């Protein structure tokens, strides 16, 4: 909402500078988005008259203007605007001017011809939006006069952000009321005395409201014998500073009154209305109207239209129709001031993709009481400016007034909520200045009653009154305190503690955390080569996505991470060790009938080299075991010990390099090397190792009790065992067998070497384990160990058919 300080001062006196006024408005709830100084930078801009126009010798589109700027001889200016003519009075920027648009004016040669200044458009002068041609001034103006003085331009515009609960502030009078509350000075409302004609309106027209829910009030006046023409300068200026384009006196007045009162108005050409009457009804399905912006709109039955006897002539509260537009030939108008149901205007405007100054006001809810003062004010101005006779009376169809809301205010309660000691008198004076009527108040009583003014539809409860008192009293005057401690026990959510812990462990392993969008491209599931019945294809779709790439909720994090790997690789970052903790969205049924499960999921991908680049380090690439090692560290740190890694068959992985991760018998995820076809689909050349697990099942392990075990006091004995086994025998099976047959003397078994190739038969591999033996109460003898070691060897041979190398 653009508020001209000059205009505002016509309704209220105040001593604040525009800057101070802006500050005070900010601190009472009207945020100032921008302060625009009109007239700034126009010191060297003067009135000029174009005496003669000649063609430019070197350019077809340019002309040479000889301009009288009050000096003895005219100056020559090169100009390209199409609307200049001999005798035109124009705004001339002389050398030295620095225009608000950023242009500095100097004497210069334009295509080889001297130009001693510039003829300006309104936009270049910062006083309007028009840029089509240069600004043409009244012929009465004297060449050489300073433009700002001549037009009385100097003003400050405050561009205010009005919150949606305060449609009353979308008007100069509304802001004047706020200023009144701030300063204590009274608002001078315009005096409206309207001289009416003898002819009664009922003889000229009728208004029929067929849906008084969508149109609670519709008032019309008829004004005949008007003369449509340009508005006087003062009115044009008002319309312009409000950010609109002057059109003609009638339209300008309706816009002026809308800005002044906050009530949108519309003028129809009376003679263009079929049977000269108004019917307010719902649109017929598919009914069409050509709106004022020149677009044909197709309407639906939930929209309200203003119609004449035959057809719609306006979309109620949104925009008028072109067929009934007021133009130069109009001699009689029907002036509309009405109230429309907010939600319906909002829906209609959205559906038509047409937001106007009118709809922006109606959709926030306006009071029906505003209808009459606004229509009378507009009629008064039309009579004064465009002449004409105002028919007697208003054709007013109103569902009926609602009585003003009455509220009881307890001043103790106000102070308790705010943490203040504001005296009751102070509260009452704040409310009075805001237009509330105080009654039923006794000196000795803490409570009082208020009547809420009709224009404050947002105030209906004590809490709203508290806000009014607080914002005018000043938030900055309320002392900052801390809540008195109530001794609430705070138990951290184990899910969040787990997530934090997983993050800490993984960054310790050298992985970077990523955050990617929760919605992905459905094609990602094709890139993963998932069959049609794969459970991961049961995803939730967004009804109104921004793009196809962000249109379905992910059921796995892997595609998001692969995209990150690909993006980095594309940018030359090849070593990518990353993880993400995020939700996957698993619907119970589709379409959704209850909230889906949001499964906290961890995904890791590794690609590129194992370690950071160094001058002597190996250049090994990451492999499956690099990632499995990270998983082992993670599980160890989370106290998860009851788990298995079991070979699996998932289409997204290399068929021979993948496994399920089983924790306490439950499959919680997978690990593997991504299938080369998938990597190709993402444009990746390097192998990528990937893992995804559900975090929830790990929460229980967080509370595992840790008990200290004494350090060993007797020496350990280390023995190795090397076997040649069939490749199909899993290492885990061999290790378990060693541990089982070794019994309690075995402290630890670990695989320290594997080999296949020369000297090892085809289809077999060599595995070497070291076994640490120890007894907790004494030193073991060689004989004791030999017995166990022999037993292990024979069990391995018998049960697995492996060859033990001696």
């Amino acid at each position: 909402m653009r508020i001209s300080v000059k205009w505002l001062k016509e309704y209220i006196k105040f001593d604040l500078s525009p800057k101070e006024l802006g500050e005070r408005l900010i601190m009472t709830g009207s945020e100032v988005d921008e302060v625009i100084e009109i007239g700034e930078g126009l010191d060297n801009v003067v009135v000029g008259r174009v005496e003669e126009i000649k063609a430019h010798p070197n350019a077809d589109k340019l002309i040479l203007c000889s301009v009288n700027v009050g000096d003895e001889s005219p100056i020559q200016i090169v100009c390209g605007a199409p609307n200049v003519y001999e005798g035109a009075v124009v705004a001339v920027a002389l050398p030295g001017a620095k225009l608000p648009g950023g242009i500095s004016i100097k004497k210069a040669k334009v295509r080889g011809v001297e130009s001693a200044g510039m003829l300006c458009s309104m936009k270049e002068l910062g006083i309007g939006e028009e840029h089509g041609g240069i600004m043409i001034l009244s012929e009465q103006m004297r060449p050489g006069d300073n433009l700002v003085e001549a037009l009385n331009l100097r003003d400050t515009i405050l561009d205010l952000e009005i919150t949606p609960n305060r449609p009353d502030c979308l008007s100069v009078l509304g802001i004047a009321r706020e200023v009144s509350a701030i300063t204590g000075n009274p608002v001078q409302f315009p005096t409206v005395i309207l001289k009416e004609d003898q002819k009664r309106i009922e003889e000229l027209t009728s208004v029929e409201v067929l849906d008084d829910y969508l149109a609670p009030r519709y008032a019309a006046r008829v004004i005949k014998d008007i003369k449509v023409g340009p508005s006087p300068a003062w009115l044009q200026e008002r319309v312009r500073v409000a950010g609109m384009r002057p059109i003609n006196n009638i339209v300008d007045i309706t816009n002026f009154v809308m800005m002044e009162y906050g009530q949108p108005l519309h003028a129809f050409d009376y003679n263009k209305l079929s049977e000269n009457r108004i019917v307010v009804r719902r649109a017929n399905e598919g009914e069409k109207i050509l709106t004022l912006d020149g677009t044909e709109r197709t309407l639906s039955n939930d929209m309200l239209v203003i119609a004449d006897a035959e057809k719609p002539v306006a979309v109620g509260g949104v925009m008028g129709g072109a067929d009934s537009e007021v133009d130069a030939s109009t001699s009689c108008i029907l002036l509309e001031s009405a109230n429309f149901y907010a939600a319906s205007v909002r829906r209609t405007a959205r559906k038509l993709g047409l937001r106007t100054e009118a709809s922006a006001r109606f959709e926030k809810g306006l009071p029906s009481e505003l209808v009459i003062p606004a229509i009378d004010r507009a009629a008064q101005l039309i009579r004064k400016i465009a002449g004409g006779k105002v028919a007697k009376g208003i054709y007013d169809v109103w569902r009926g007034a609602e009585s003003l809301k009455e509220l009881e205010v307890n001043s103790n309660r106000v102070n308790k909520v705010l943490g203040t000691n504001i005296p009751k008198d102070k509260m009452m004076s704040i409310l009075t200045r805001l237009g509330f009527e105080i009654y039923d108040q006794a000196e000795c009583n803490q409570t009082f009653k208020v009547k809420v003014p009709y224009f404050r539809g947002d105030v209906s409860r004590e809490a709203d009154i508290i806000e009014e008192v607080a914002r005018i009293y000043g938030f900055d005057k309320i002392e900052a305190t801390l809540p008195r401690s109530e001794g609430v026990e705070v138990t951290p959510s184990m899910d969040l503690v787990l997530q934090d812990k997983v993050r800490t462990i993984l960054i310790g392993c050298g992985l970077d955390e990523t955050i990617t969008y929760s919605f992905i491209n459905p094609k990602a599931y094709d890139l993963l080569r998932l069959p049609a019945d794969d459970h991961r294809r049961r995803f939730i779709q967004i009804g109104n996505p921004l793009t196809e790439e962000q249109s379905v909720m992910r059921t796995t994090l892997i595609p998001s991470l692969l995209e990150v790997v690909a993006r980095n690789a594309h940018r030359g970052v090849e070593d990518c060790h990353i993880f993400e903790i995020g939700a996957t969205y698993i619907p119970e049924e589709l379409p959704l009938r209850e909230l889906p499960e949001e499964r906290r999921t961890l995904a890791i991908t590794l690609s590129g080299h194992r370690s950071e680049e160094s001058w002597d380090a190996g250049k090994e690439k990451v492999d499956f075991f690099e990632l499995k090692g990270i998983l082992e560290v993670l599980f160890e740190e989370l106290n998860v010990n009851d788990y298995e890694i079991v070979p699996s068959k998932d289409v997204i992985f290399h068929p021979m390099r993948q496994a399920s991760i089983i924790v306490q018998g439950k499959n919680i995820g997978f690990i593997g090397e991504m299938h080369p076809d998938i990597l190709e689909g993402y444009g990746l050349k390097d192998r990528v190792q990937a893992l995804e697990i559900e975090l929830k099942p790990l929460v229980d392990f967080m509370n595992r009790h840790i008990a200290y075990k004494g350090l060993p006091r007797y020496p350990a004995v280390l023995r190795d065992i090397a076997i040649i086994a069939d490749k199909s025998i899993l290492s885990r099976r061999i290790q378990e067998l060693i541990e089982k047959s070794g019994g309690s003397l075995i402290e630890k078994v670990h695989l320290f070497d594997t080999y296949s190739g020369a000297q090892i038969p085809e289809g077999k591999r060599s595995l070497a384990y070291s076994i640490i033996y120890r007894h907790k109460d004494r030193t073991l003898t060689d004989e004791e160990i030999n017995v166990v070691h022999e037993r292990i060897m024979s069990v391995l041979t018998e049960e697995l058919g492996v060859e033990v190398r001696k």
Partner: protein
Amino acid sequence: MREELESIRVQCLNGISSVTIHDDLEKLRVKYLGKKGLLTKVLRGMGKVSPEERPIIGSIANEIRDELEEAIKTRYSYIKEKEKAQRFETEAIDVTMPGRRRSYGKKHPLTLIIDEIKEVFVGLGYEVVEGPEIELDYYNFEALNVPPDHPARDLQDTFYITDDFLLRTQTSPVQIRVMESQSPPVKIIAPGKVYRCDSDVTHSPMFHQIEGLAIGEDITFGDLKGTLTIFSQRLFGKDRGVRFRPHYFPFTEPSAEVDISCMICNGKGCRLCSNTGWIEILGAGMVDPQVFKVVNYDYSKIGGFAFGMGVERIAMLKYGIDDIRLFFENDLRFLEQF
């Protein structure tokens, strides 16, 4: 005999001073002072010396032995030091060469900010909770006093899944879920992802918010100011001015926006703060009675405040990031700066 001893002494001392490696010195020691060494050999001839002279020769021999042992020991240390010095010389390294790094990862910058904010509020006794991202229209709007066709819905362009299910546009529905499931007092913060159909340099269709809620018998607007002042100054520095400006939110009354004095120009006015000297970081207010009604809390007995903030916005201000999309591109050269 004296001459003999003297000549052994001289020879040996000469030998010692010319020896340069440890093994040669040991050989020299054995040659002169060993069991079969020259000095011992000479002393074996003591029989030929007169009884009067014997003690004198004996003491001379002992003196010489002591002197030689001492000289060998000194030489030994000398050689050892010299060898060490040589070894050091050969082991010289260029300390300016880069170290072999143990790689350490980075938390995402948004995680860092969320952690920092959590720490402040956990310190003030708040519990951290989560809520669903796919929400019911009821929790995201209606229960928060935003019925269908309320103009406030225009401020938040919503992704809908069906008419009833949507991607939450704010973390505020967590307030309702918490109040539905527990009775006052309540002190929670709820970080999480939120979604709006909007995408440019400062808007992302997915971003993060942190919601806060404190409900109790005597909680006042002054408490809201105190709490959020502490928070703002912990995050942005003690010298930051903090300003509470009246605003409108459907689910708080009175409502405020919280500004801090601009960290670039210190309030003088610059591009970052659009010449206002202030930067908005939070929305807040006293919980609206309508919200209490929805969750069956008794407005006449309790009060409370709620607040919400955008994590990306705070991260952008703190780290000087000018494009929100960087957070979600996950370029490692970006991530590894934090």
